[in-house]
């Protein structure tokens, strides 16, 4: 659970839930918007991770 990916996913869940509730009023819209936000966070995290992979850090 305390892996980098696991914590990133947990962080994304919290942020997606709060933003979806803030920005949409209907539960169905909140669910859909939150799911898209969560998928976007995970996809962006994995993409940026791979982009950083060749860097000598």
């Amino acid at each position, binding site marked *: 659970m305390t892996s980098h990916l696991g914590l990133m996913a947990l962080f994304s869940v919290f942020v997606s839930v709060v933003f979806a509730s*803030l920005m949409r009023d209907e539960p169905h819209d909140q669910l859909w918007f939150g799911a898209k936000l969560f998928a976007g966070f995970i996809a962006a995290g994995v993409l940026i991770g791979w982009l950083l992979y060749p860097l000598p850090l």
Partner: protein
Amino acid sequence: MRATAADQVDPATNKYLVAAIAWAIPGAGHLLLRRRQKGVTFLIALTLMFATGLWLEGRIFPLGFDLSQPLVGLAAIADLGIGIPYFIAKFMGHGAGRVVAITYEYGNAFAIVAGLLNMLVVLDAWDVAEGRK
């Protein structure tokens, strides 16, 4: 036609009181404004996020602005955004932070972002109280 949640807001609701309550207890401002679903969501999500930050051995940054460490002061302001849970954690001796813990920085991120998100929730409650939403 079914009344929307915005129609149910009492125009006499004091927006300053709503903002203060919304800051003190995450989601309480929306509960006061009869936005129950949002209020409960914020209460659970933000409190749990802050608690996760403490569980991950993050630090609750101390108040008091030290010019030599401006980022610590800004982190303290962000932490304070969560409201009463900040003081409860301090009172119970949590949030000392263990710098050598592998999850220390993650914990800080969770606690700081929970506070910042609650500030956004306060602004949203203010807008609802003003009748803008």
